[in-house]
Each structure stands twice: as structure tokens, then as C-alpha cells.
């Protein structure tokens, strides 16, 4: 395996304790520097796949490598070190609501911060400068002392992006980052993720269900259906028959998708 492979997933399977099978035999590679979109209906296993990659969920079968190092089976400090390489962005933002915006961004640095002072919410001056710079990148430097839950949804997601930036990762895992946002605000958030990919050279793996966004931002795409990988290609190859394959015979593309 070469360094060009950012993430490698081999024969990944996940059965939840209740017996629900979320993933089955998924194998894929994410190349360094690309923006890979993961498509599929809700319940098709997109979230589970992303969470198996940084081991927020332990897969029941298969193996995963991040930047050439196997994360499945890793424990303790080694696992945390690998997680630091892959920042995650969530559909529900998952900010600490009662903390300030700045503390939320600073929490991206927890992986490299001394334990005791971090437990007192105290960070070195240079980390604070970095956090302010990260907030500036997403256009929220003036809100650094607000409580996180005082911000709008779009702003909260931009804080989450600043937190990811603060982590100084080489990969971004984004789980439906704009699905909870007003359609008018989606591009403002997606553009920031695109900037991480283009300007910082971070590899992005992002689940999305809006075909418009996929064709606009992704360089390559994979599709899941019932926990299996059913399609792999570039946005240009995506057409009506692919759509049916991914979403089933009953599905209708929304009128503005151009299909």
C-alpha cells in the first residue's frame, strides 16, 4: 500500500447488538487529497461506515487502515493518535453547548494538550491564537466569547469546522454535514469543507444525500445500499440508471437535480 491511500477499508461488516446488520463486506480506498462523497438512503450504513473508520463504533468484521496504519485493533494512546489524524464533522454539529465558541474550537487540540491543564479548560497561548485564527477562517472571530448554543445552526457547523481545523488532521470525516441546515446555508458550509480539501490538502470523506451537492463538490463517489457498496465512480458517470441502482426502483430524482 502506498502513501497515496489515505483510508483503506477491507471487507468491513457491522452487526449491532440488537441484530441489525448495518454494513456487509464493504471494501474501498480513499486516495490522498480527494473529496470522496458517500451516497445512500438514510439507514444504508453511511454513518456507521464513517464511525467505523475512526472507531467511534467497533466494526464486527473487517479491517481499516488510516494513512497506512491499521486502526482496527488499536488501543489506548495509539488509537487516540490515529484519531487525531482524522477530524470528524457531524450532522448535529455536536458542540459542547454550554462552552464558549472559543473553548469548543480549542477542544480540537485536546489530543495534543497536557491532561491536567486541559481538564481545567486551560490551553497554552499559542493554541488560543491558533483557535482564533481557525475561527477567523470560518468568519466567526467576533463570536469567540458567545456560548455555542447562542449561534444559529449554520454558524454552529462552522464552529465545528474550526474545531476540525484546530485538530490539524490529514483527513476529514463528515457525516451529513449540511443535512440539518437550511438549504440556503448549505453551500456556505460546504465551501469551507471544500477549502480544507483544496487549500490544506486534507482528504475528505463526506456522506451526503443531495445529488446536487455531490456533483458540485465531490471528486469521486461511492454509494451504499442496505449496508453494501453498490456503486463507485466519478460524478460525470452518474446518471438515471445509477440513481435507480442506489435509491431503488421507486425513487424519483428531485425535479431540480437535472436527471
Amino acid at each position, binding site marked *: 500500500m502506498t502513501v497515496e491511500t489515505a483510508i483503506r477499508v477491507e471487507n468491513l461488516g457491522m452487526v449491532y447488538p440488537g441484530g441489525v446488520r448495518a454494513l456487509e463486506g464493504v471494501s474501498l480506498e480513499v486516495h490522498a487529497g480527494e473529496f470522496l462523497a458517500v451516497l445512500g438512503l438514510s439507514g444504508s450504513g453511511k454513518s456507521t461506515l464513517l464511525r467505523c473508520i475512526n472507531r467511534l463504533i467497533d466494526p464486527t468484521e473487517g479491517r481499516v487502515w488510516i494513512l497506512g496504519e491499521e486502526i482496527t485493533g488499536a488501543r489506548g494512546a495509539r488509537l487516540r493518535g490515529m484519531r487525531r489524524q482524522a477530524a470528524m464533522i457531524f450532522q448535529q454539529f455536536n458542540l*459542547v453547548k454550554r462552552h464558549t465558541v472559543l473553548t469548543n474550537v480549542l477542544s480540537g487540540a485536546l489530543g495534543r494538550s497536557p491532561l491536567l491543564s486541559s481538564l481545567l479548560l486551560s490551553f497554552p497561548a499559542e493554541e488560543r491564537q491558533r483557535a482564533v485564527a481557525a475561527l477567523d477562517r470560518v468568519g466567526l472571530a467576533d463570536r469567540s466569547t458567545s456560548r455555542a448554543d447562542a449561534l444559529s445552526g449554520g454558524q454552529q457547523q462552522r464552529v465545528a469546522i474550526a474545531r476540525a481545523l484546530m485538530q490539524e488532521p490529514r483527513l476529514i470525516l463528515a457525516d451529513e454535514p449540511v443535512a440539518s441546515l437550511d438549504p440556503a446555508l448549505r453551500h456556505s458550509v460546504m465551501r469551507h469543507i471544500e477549502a480544507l480539501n483544496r487549500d490544506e490538502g486534507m482528504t475528505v470523506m463526506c456522506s451526503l444525500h443531495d445529488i446536487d451537492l455531490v456533483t458540485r463538490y465531490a471528486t469521486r463517489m461511492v454509494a451504499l445500499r442496505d449496508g453494501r457498496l453498490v456503486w463507485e465512480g466519478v460524478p460525470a458517470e452518474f446518471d438515471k440508471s445509477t440513481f435507480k441502482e442506489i435509491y431503488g426502483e421507486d425513487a424519483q430524482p428531485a425535479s431540480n437535480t437535472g436527471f
Partner: protein
Amino acid sequence: MGWKDDEKVRAAVWEKSLARLQATALDAVLLGVTLLMVEFLVQAFSGRRGPTGLLLSAEQILDLLHYAWAAVGGLVLALLWNLFYRQVGSSLGRAWVRGVPEWEAPLEWTQTLRGWFTAVFIELTFFSGWLITELDLFTFLTKFGKAADIVRGLMHPSGAVLHEGLILLVQTIFLAFMATAFAIPIAFVLAFPSARNLTRNTLTARIAYTVARTFMNFVRAVEPLVWALIFISWVGIGPFAGVLALWVHSVAALTKLYSEQIESIDTGPMEAIAATGASALQVLRYGVVPQVIPPFLSFTIYRWDINVRMSTIIGFVGGGGIGYILKPRVDLGEWGEVGTLVLLIAGTVWLMDVISAKIRERIV
């Protein structure tokens, strides 16, 4: 195909028989209790007299019931019902464990044996409950006279104990405060291993959960009054014993309240913090603690409030505070003085309730 499918079939069979066992056990208990209640009512209405010639009391009847026979009878009936459930309809236990089957779903409760059984069971519970607790409406309505003395005394509080009462009231409030304050750090630490959602992943965590829960439930099961007696013989009569008794009980009670609060948090921030490569302690500090601090404060103030009320009873047995001077007045029937003390306590409790409501409103 192969061993994996065999395994699945075996697991399914195992699950099915386990469900059947649970259903039958539940039915056996319900039917056994029903038999006992019926026997109790039959005995109560049979007019049997004891060796003294008086009608048997509720305890005497309870003593002579045939518990072993009821257990056997309940088990037999439960087995029969679960064996022939296709003919007579699902039993309560079966419906509880497996859900109501489709072919029964549209029936009204009056159309099923299960429905009738439930109705009879509830009726029986009330009838036997009435007799077991010896409820007596006639006495209640006709013999108020004696109690009127007490009520009259309470309405005419005497000023004789006002001074002493106020001083001990201050002691009571501080007693409750110290007990609560010392309980906070211990309960805070114990709450995390006592929360199910934080202790699922590793064996050590599961062991910590079991140990913390067992300890907490044991301490909580022992009444504060009993703790007071223990500490009075340890450190002697006085407010210190009261503080210790309420402290021990508050640790257990607060741990339970705190841990339930931890169990109901939003796991999203925990995931987000874990994903940054943070360690377990950092995940707790950033992903859990900020979410639980306001409810923790609110529970703690509520606990202080409860402790003020409890310290009265603790004082009865020698745990200091206002209860300590209340007890002799009750024994001597000095109802005017009792009235003064009761009013002082009621006023304090009311005031604390108002203040704690205000504080809680502000924090949450």
C-alpha cells in the same frame, strides 16, 4: 451457509424458549398472588375466630394462608394457560413478553380471558388491600375527639419554646447544609461509574458499575434513622451524629440522581470529543460534565431541602437540631409548644422550597 446459520437457528430457539420461560414465570407469580388474595378474602369473610374468641386480625389471616399451595397452584395454572394459549387466548405474561398476537389484536378486553383476569386481579388487589391495612371509614369519621386536642394545641402555639426553637432551627439548617456539602464530591465521583451508558465498553468499567451500584443501593436501602442510631453510638448524641447520618444517605441519594442524569445526556458531544483523539478523562470533562452541571446543582439544592426536613426526624432519636426538643414535648403532650416548633419547621421548609425553586429556575 454453514456453522454461522446453525448458530443463528440455535440462538433463535434459545431466545424463544427463554421468552416462554419468562412468560410462564410472570403468569405463575400473578396467578399465585390471585389465589392467595382469594383465599385471604374467603378467610376474612368466613367469620373464623381466634383462640381469644375475637375475629382474626389481618396479620393472623396472612399468617395462616397456604403460600406453598398457592405457588404450586399458580405454576400449574400458568403452565396450562401457556400450553393452551391458542385455545383460550394469550396470558398476561405471554402478551407482556411476546406482544399481543395478530389474531387477538382486534379484540376488546372484555372478549379475552386475559382482559377479564386483569380486571379481577385489580379488583382483588383493592379488596384485599382494604382488609389487610384494616381501613375503617366509620372510626375515621366518628372518633375525631381525641385528635382535636392536638390540633387545638397546634393552632395555639406557645411562645415558651420560641427562643430555643429558633436557635435549634439554625442548627438544623446548618446540619442539613454540612451533610449535603460533604456528600457532593463523593456522589460526583461515584456517579460516573454508576452510569450505565459510560460503563458498557470494558470489563473493568462493568465491574466498577456493579460495585458502585451495589454499594449505593445498599446504603440507600438503610433508612437515615438507622444510620443516625449507628452514628449516635459512634460519636455520641448531638448534631454531629445527625450530619453523619444525613451525609451517608445523601451520598447514595445524590449518586443515584446524578448518575440518572448522566445516563440521559446527549451522546453527540462525547462522540465529537472522542473523535479529536481526546482521552477518556477529557471526554468526560468536555463531553459529559458541561451537560450535567446545571441538573446536578438543581438536585443538590433539592437534596438540601429534603435534608432539612429529614433532620427533624433524625433529631427525634438524638441527632441534634430542632427534632431533639420536639420529641420530649410530643411525649409530654405539650401541644402548644409542639405547635410552635412545627410552625418553625414548616416555615423553613416553605422558605427553602421557594428559594431552591428560584435558584433552579436561574441555573437550568
